[in-house]
């Protein structure tokens, strides 16, 4: 009985490892960096990651930024990443979520701020 439980446990963990990633840099395509430029339509200054919605000429991106404390520490204040600002986000598109990208750095008002 115990042995069976242990075995099924290991199988469960093993199968978990094959499921696709949702979070972290691992689920972003670092081999093809992209730059998303447009106006900020929505801004969530929240943990665990701030996110902004950026409208470009052809689509609307969800751009994942950094945790709130890091944003503050580097000068990316809520006022800087506010709705209506024009942003240029350099980063990687998600392999999982459609039209989502994670920013390596963002440029707003002539200021470039690292997110990692």
């Amino acid at each position, binding site marked *: 009985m115990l042995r069976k439980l242990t075995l099924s446990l290991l199988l*469960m963990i093993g199968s*978990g490892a094959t499921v696709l990633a949702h979070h972290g840099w691992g689920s972003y395509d670092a081999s093809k960096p992209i730059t998303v430029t447009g106006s900020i339509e929505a801004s969530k200054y929240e943990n665990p990651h701030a996110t902004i919605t950026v409208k470009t000429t052809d689509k609307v991106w969800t751009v994942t930024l950094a945790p709130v*404390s890091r944003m503050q520490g580097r000068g990316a204040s809520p006022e800087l990443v506010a709705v209506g600002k024009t942003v240029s986000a350099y980063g990687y598109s998600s392999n999982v979520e459609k039209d989502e990208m994670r920013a390596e750095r963002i440029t707003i008002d002539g200021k470039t701020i690292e997110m990692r």
Partner: protein
Amino acid sequence: MLPEAPQILIALEQSGLAAAIRQSTWAYPLANVSHIMALTLFAGAVATMDARLLGAFAAAPPADVVRPARRVAMLGLLLMAVSGSVLFAAEASHVAMNPVFQIKAALIALGILNALLIGRALGAVLDDAPAFQPLPARIRLAAALSLTIWISVAACGRLIAYF
């Protein structure tokens, strides 16, 4: 928000409390740190307890190690549950639908059930169990299972962010 998550978890994620956790600069990181500190307390106590059940520290009568370690483990588990609830509430629908979190939740249930069964099996023998004498095989087996389960829980916890 993940629309396919149970309604109650979507409601939790959209609650004022969850929003306050996300919008606070320090609530989320503080819960994160607390969760790991509680883990060290919990894992240390569990490892001590299970090691004694398996036959380590044989010079000490099992009760002298297992009873105090068990109290610390329960405190650690409580602190993990509190800090974990904060982390969970902030992203309830996402976390609940995360396959690794689902495995973790099942393993926690299994680990608690196993601990209760060990407690019951020990109830009859712990007080009279002398030093240097191995405990019954099923208790040792359950202690090994306990270690396996809780290490797996910790691994799953760390892996949630990557799946």
